[in-house]
């Protein structure tokens, strides 16, 4: 207690110096919080945009190889394989696979789905589309069409379908309008019951979402599916969960991390640069505290000598300076997080994403700041504790 009482009185006595270093710590921690909040907000936004319209993991059989046109022993054909719509092999025992995927740790939702290419017509308009068929509730847990509806309802019963805003515009279709959808095998007429905007041009512009049965009929895959879409609890653990699913089902998987290598590299580079910025900011804070306390030790040599002469132990002298570092760190963190949060709020209006100072970020800033304060104070504190009291008193005279 004596150490804290003396630390407080030392800080109060040198209040101009204390306020200046406190301002430095506050600015440093504000920068720490502000940069962290922006980068975190940006990353959350990027992830939401990317993962809001796709599955975290896709479980699908390998694509089938093109069939030979003719098999004649001893005869070689010169042929060119034209890339076309990949045709998936039938998904054997997909219901059992779904159960196994659901039983995998980290999986929070699954959606058996059938998808394939088709053409959509309305009047003279014609567009290449991707027909996606699934159970409405299951699909909503992978891509939340209902939350992103701009018109109509999210319902996939009978001959109903929902489409994206871009496709609706290209086809000139509105809620309630019918569209013709033709695949290689069949043609159906579907009625638009809802129009969505999930933030992805690919989905908004190409997807025609309908019931599993409609899609199976249209794409000639009665009773079959093309893939199982999976949502996981922790997005950054998707790759590990995908490997586990492969081991359980024997069916190939592809995680969002594999599909979006460039995004992942970008996010990791951003993490690295944020870490560097944080380290430099904290170094600046630490050096500020250490230099001020070092000067204080020199200025107070005589006082430290007197403290030792009247019976104050080295341990308490050490603690007096550690407390000063801790108080700088603590008060600087409280003020700095406030300033950082306010700065975040101020620029949020002009940013295209949410900047949220989370309790976790506040706790991190507080912990890091206090730890930095104490560590920065350690060397000056040790120097003060090891002062020769006789020399210190003489030096002050």
């Amino acid at each position, binding site marked *: *207690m*004596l150490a804290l*009482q*003396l630390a407080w*009185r*030392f800080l*109060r*006595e*040198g209040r101009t110096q204390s306020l200046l270093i406190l301002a430095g710590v506050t600015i440093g921690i504000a920068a720490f919080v502000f940069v962290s909040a922006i980068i975190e907000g940006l990353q959350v936004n990027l992830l939401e945009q990317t993962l809001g319209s796709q599955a975290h993991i896709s479980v699908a059989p390998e694509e089938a190889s093109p069939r030979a046109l003719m098999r004649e022993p001893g005869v070689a054909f010169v042929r060119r394989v034209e890339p076309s719509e990949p045709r998936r092999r039938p998904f054997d025992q997909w219901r059992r696979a779904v159960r196994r995927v659901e039983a995998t740790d980290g999986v929070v939702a699954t959606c058996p789905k059938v998808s394939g290419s088709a053409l959509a017509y309305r009047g003279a308009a014609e567009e290449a589309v991707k027909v996606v068929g699934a159970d409405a509730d299951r699909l909503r847990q992978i891509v939340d069409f209902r939350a992103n509806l701009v018109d109509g309802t999210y319902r996939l019963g009978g001959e109903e379908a929902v489409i994206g805003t871009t496709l609706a515009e290209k086809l000139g279709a509105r809620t309630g309008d019918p569209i013709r959808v033709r695949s290689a095998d069949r043609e159906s007429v579907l009625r638009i019951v809802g129009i969505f905007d999930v933030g992805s041009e690919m989905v908004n512009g190409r997807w025609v979402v309908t019931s599993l049965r409609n899609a199976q009929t249209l794409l000639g895959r009665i009773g079959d599916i093309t893939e199982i879409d999976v949502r996981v609890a922790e997005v950054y653990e998707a790759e590990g969960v995908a490997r586990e699913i492969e081991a359980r089902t024997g069916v190939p998987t592809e995680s969002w991390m594999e599909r979006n290598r460039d995004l992942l590299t970008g996010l990791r580079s951003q993490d690295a640069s944020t870490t560097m910025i944080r380290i430099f900011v904290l170094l600046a804070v630490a050096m500020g505290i250490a230099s001020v306390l070092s000067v204080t030790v020199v200025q107070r040599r*005589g*006082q430290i*000598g*007197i*403290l*030792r*002469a*009247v*019976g*104050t*132990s*080295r*341990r*308490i002298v050490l603690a007096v300076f550690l407390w000063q570092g801790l108080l700088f760190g603590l008060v600087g963190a409280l003020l700095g997080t406030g300033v950082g949060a306010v700065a975040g709020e101020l620029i949020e209006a002009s940013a295209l994403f949410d900047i949220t100072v989370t309790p976790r970020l506040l706790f991190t800033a507080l912990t890091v700041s206090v730890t930095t304060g104490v560590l920065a104070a350690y060397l000056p504190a040790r120097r003060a504790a090891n002062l*020769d*009291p*006789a020399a210190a*008193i*003489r030096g*002050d*005279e």
Partner: protein
Amino acid sequence: MTRALEFLQLEGIRKSYEDGVRTEVLHGIDISIGEGDLVALVGPSGSGKSTLLNLIGLLDRPTQGRILIEGQAVENLNDRTLTALRGEKLGFIFQSHHLLPGLTVVENVMLPTAAAQGGFRAVMKTQALALLDAMGISDWAEAWPRQLSGGMQQRVAVARALINDPPLVLADEPTGNLDTETSDQVMELLLRRNSESSTAFLIVTHDSNLARRCERVIELVDGAVVREGPPG
């Protein structure tokens, strides 16, 4: 002349400093101070008075020889024990008052007690105020040291040295920075305390008048005691 039960005994104390060349500043000092003694330590500048005072005050360690406090040798005690012993058994008064400017007057007086008990507590204040009253400055208890005159500051330093009721007070030129009148007042305080209690005083001084008011004078020249006895 060493009495049977002295508070402090120094036996063959030598002190050297190493600064490229080894320089011995004290050459075998043997002195003792008993309960309630009033001793003046005199000698020219550079004779080793301050070095000897630092050794007696346990602020430094001798190169050779023994220091006994209440019969207990202290040279092998660790820093923590020495610190506790210093706080409990010794009081210090310096030429410059050395008050802590960030503490109020009464907090400065309480400092040795706070060091011994691990913090400032309200109960310590009563004794500190009584001492300040005895020094005639109780009205200034809550003032800052900078608001006091030099003489008042030195009286606060005297009160601080006495707060733990130490058996021995070491005073290094306690009136050296004061004018004659203030110097007399401070000296009166020390003498009164000495006569009213069993507190011993070892006073380093250049002032022959002050030395004459002590019971015993130890004269140090070139690191050796050349005379010890009643003021002559």
